[in-house]
């Protein structure tokens, strides 16, 4: 708990997490407003479209998660941190925990905000099925796991530019370009982490390889593996 409290103080005593939080929620809710306001028939805008802006939010969360650790390397405070708290795995865990919790809150606020804005502008999509609930309430969970993965990548790469490039290029480009490979591309794509996360949220498509909850479990497992690798490397490496 001490470690979590410490990491919380560190995170919120700089500006960038505040900025990222506002941006993440603002983009998701803002895009939902834009979509409903420009729609000819707002009543029939579905949840999937309403939450299309969550991709923006996800990018912000990835960047925020990576920066939470790369700025420590950038400014040398990682050494101060390890000097104060020599248990490096615990520090990394506390940091991932705090950033993940923040991302969870941001995801929930953004998703329910987007849904609420849609309601105000006349969208009729309700939260009737469990799939609807997953699409909205599930966003926070996906954001939280993504933030943890981003902390892990940040800890491995240690440079903001490199970590952010890898995270964004992976999630925005590689996972989709993979499907262009003849024959096997689509099969590989089905097992990509962010594709799995989206499958949990609702974009299952026909004949999905995993059910929604199994997809989430798979995404969580990949995140856990990344985190474990990062923890081992951070412990071995000189700070």
């Amino acid at each position: 708990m001490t470690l979590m409290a410490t990491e919380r103080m560190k995170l919120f005593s700089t500006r960038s997490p505040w900025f990222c939080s506002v941006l993440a929620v603002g983009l998701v809710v803002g895009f939902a407003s834009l979509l409903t306001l420009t729609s000819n028939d707002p009543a029939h805008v579905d949840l999937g479209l309403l939450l299309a802006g969550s991709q923006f939010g996800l990018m912000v969360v990835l960047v925020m998660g990576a920066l939470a650790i790369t700025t420590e390397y950038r400014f040398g405070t990682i050494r101060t941190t390890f000097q104060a708290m020599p248990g490096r795995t615990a520090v990394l865990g506390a940091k991932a925990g705090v950033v993940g919790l923040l991302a969870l809150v941001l995801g929930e606020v953004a998703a329910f905000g987007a849904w609420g804005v849609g309601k105000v502008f006349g969208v009729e999509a309700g939260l009737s099925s469990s799939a609807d609930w997953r699409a909205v309430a599930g966003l926070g969970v996906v954001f939280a796991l993504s933030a943890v993965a981003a902390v892990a990548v940040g800890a491995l790469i240690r440079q903001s530019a490199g970590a952010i490039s890898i995270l964004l290029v992976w999630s925005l480009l590689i996972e989709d370009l993979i499907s262009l490979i003849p024959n096997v591309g689509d099969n590989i794509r089905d097992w990509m982490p962010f594709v799995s996360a989206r499958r949990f949220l609702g974009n299952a498509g026909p004949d999905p390889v995993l059910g929604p909850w199994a997809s989430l479990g798979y995404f969580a497992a990949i995140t856990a593996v990344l985190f474990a690798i990062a923890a081992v490397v951070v412990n071995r490496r000189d700070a």
Partner: protein
Amino acid sequence: MIEASGLTKRYGKTLAVDNLSFTAQSGRVTGFLGPNGAGKSTTMRMVLGLDTPTAGDVRIDGKHYRDLKDPLRTVGALLDAKWVHPNRSARAHLAWLARSNRIPAKRVDEVLELVGLTGVAGKNAGGFSLGMSQRLGIAGALLGDPKVLLFDEPVNGLDPEGILWIRKFMHRLADEGRTVFVSSHLLSEMALTAQELVVIGRGKLIAQTSTEEFVAMATEASVRVRSPQLDQLRSALGRDGVSIRDEGDSLVVTGIDAAAIGDLAAAASIALHELSPQRGSLEEAFMQLTGDSVEYHTDIANDTAALLATGSVAR
């Protein structure tokens, strides 16, 4: 107390620290002296568990740093004053440090007061001058009221007032019974600050001794004597504890002072054309000791004497 034994750090092909053993006692200011690039910072990072030694071991009061519970309560360190987030206020920086080691929040204000930063505690650390950053770093080191303190080049870039402040501060900390381990590349500074010295060059230990002894050895006087009767003079001076070296038309004598040489010469009716005491410069002796040109020995006395006797460091 800090005890290092056989501490070694290798980066690829270069040995940054080579089989280094030393101790820093409590109640003393121990200076860690060596030229830039000698391995001082690397050693300090290993003491703090930041870097893992390739070989060897370093303990603080018998424990590895990583095994200390709430380490800031045992060890305080200032390695680099710029290791703060520029957009975080001085108070916020100290607040998270305090929280991480269960140090009461009111201690933050105490240390801010102690280093004289209370007035700017709410300002972002990125806007601090080097002197202010240094004070903030010292505040962080003192936060846990630790028994052991490490400072890496704390006077670098400070104005004379700041240097004096730090010097007095370290003496006070040592007088309170703490272990103070402070690195510098300036012997003149260490001569004023430290009571004990650990001297390294190229990652290797050159000497561990008290500052007084080191200074005495480094500046041991020699006397240059010129005379038309050099042979007679040499035999007149020939006794225990006196070493004599020929330099053309003169002798360089150590182990006996100029007055005694003059008396001896007068008693033996030897004419003297010159009788001049030679003083070695502390800094030059140190540079010679730690520089590339010299092979390293732990026998500091002979080295220093030899260096001074060659005249190359004499003024």
